[in-house]
């Protein structure tokens, strides 16, 4: 009888996540072929821009801050972990990426850290910034891999990149999630009076957003994830919902927001398009304009501040 109770307890604790994993697997197995991006840019450099953002897909964004380029969570892979196919091709080919001042990696999950993608841009960046614990889980490259603790900065030639706290989980191979308890972060880029927040992947943590606002009170732009949203109970700790992303945007006090981390891979119960649709509804309810929150298509570049 006691053994039966233990089995029921174990099953009741594990089956919900197993059910989600099974549904995600089924969706991935029946995923449509990778969709092409029309009108891909051949040259993302915008001489007329002080600040521009090009959404390459998922959490990969090419930012131009005056004459400097930085790249977030570079993933150009056609499948994640040999299991999850990409839904839309990368919005920019890796060989079109201009010389970078820095690359940041928010954490080690396969949708944020791709070793093959880093191979593709290895010669284009002098440094890749990572959270603590990640360096010991990355292969050797010709660029420097530098770990940043929360609030620590990397500075070079006028560009400053500061690691800022977020709420997520580290690890890459499931089991190491328990060991890599600090292996996730967000970042703020500062250059020539411009400042951009990159949330990577985060749960809703008002204290961290407020603390970031206190240190960076005039953020020009916030890149915030809006998906996965469902199942909410499962995602709650690690991922903000579209509505929470708008809350985070308000707490960060940024002038503009670009949502990221949706409709590129299947990693949730969300239907394609559900997260941006929910975001639009919440924007409308809050009276936020498209200029304040710009929902880009994959491959779309937006000049946010002109020279």
């Amino acid at each position, binding site marked *: 009888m006691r053994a039966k109770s233990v089995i029921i307890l174990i099953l009741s604790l594990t089956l919900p996540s197993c059910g989600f994993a099974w549904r995600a697997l089924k969706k991935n197995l029946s995923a449509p072929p990778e969709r092409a991006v029309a009108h891909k840019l051949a040259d993302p450099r915008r001489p007329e821009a002080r600040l521009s953002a090009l959404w390459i897909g998922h959490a990969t964004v090419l930012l131009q801050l005056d004459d400097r380029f930085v790249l977030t969570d570079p993933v150009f892979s056609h499948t994640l*972990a*040999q299991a999850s196919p990409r839904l839309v091709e990368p919005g920019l080919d890796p060989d079109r990426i201009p010389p970078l001042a820095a690359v940041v990696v928010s954490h080690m999950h396969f949708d944020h850290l*791709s*070793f*093959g993608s880093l*191979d593709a841009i290895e010669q284009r960046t002098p440094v890749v910034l990572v959270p603590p614990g990640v*360096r*010991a*889980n*990355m*292969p*050797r*490259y010709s660029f420097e*891999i530098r770990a940043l603790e929360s609030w620590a900065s990397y500075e070079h030639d006028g560009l400053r990149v500061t690691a800022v706290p977020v709420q997520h989980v580290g690890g*890459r*191979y*499931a*089991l*190491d*999630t*328990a*060991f890599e*308890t600090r292996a996730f972060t967000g970042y703020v880029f500062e250059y020539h009076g411009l400042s951009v927040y990159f949330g990577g992947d985060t749960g809703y943590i008002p204290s961290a957003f407020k603390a970031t606002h206190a240190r960076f009170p005039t953020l020009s732009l916030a890149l915030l994830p809006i998906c996965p949203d469902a199942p909410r109970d499962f995602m709650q700790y690690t991922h903000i919902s579209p509505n929470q992303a708008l809350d985070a945007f308000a707490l960060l006090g940024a002038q503009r927001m670009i949502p990221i981390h949706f409709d590129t891979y299947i990693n949730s119960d969300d239907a394609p398009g559900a997260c941006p649709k929910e975001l639009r509804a919440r924007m409308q309810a809050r009276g936020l304009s498209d200029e304040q929150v710009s929902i880009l298509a994959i491959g779309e570049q937006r000049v946010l501040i002109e020279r």
Partner: protein
Amino acid sequence: MSPAAAVGLWAVAQLVPSPQLVIGEKHVGGGLRWQLTPILYSFGIAARPWRTFLVSPIARHSGSVELHVSPEWACCAPDERSSWLVRAGLRLYLPLLEHGEKLSWSIGGAYYRAAGGGGASADLGVFTFNGAFGLNVTVSPWLTRREVITTLTIRLF
């Protein structure tokens, strides 16, 4: 999950055996293999090259040399009793695709000890899915009834 619980889970994961196809001179049987890595030096990893027991897949498959210990159990051959042996040896892992996460291979040599005595063996392997699955062929010319062993390796961390 706490790190202590994770170590416990890792220990349980090490109990998951890798199934074997045991081919001897005159018969075919089955078997199981377990694997432990007391020490590994990774020359493919960016930091912390020395690892003991708990070895992340990228440290192993991006390029490494490991000292391994493998208990094995052979069974299921007609008219044969089951038997145990232990191998200990060195194995070199080299990456093929995406620093070994997608595909890597290995070559190794070991000394085995079985009930009838000891001897040398050599092995060749190929691994995929972050090293979780692989195929390993072990040749032990002087190990009667187990000259060639093909193992479907399952390694969860």
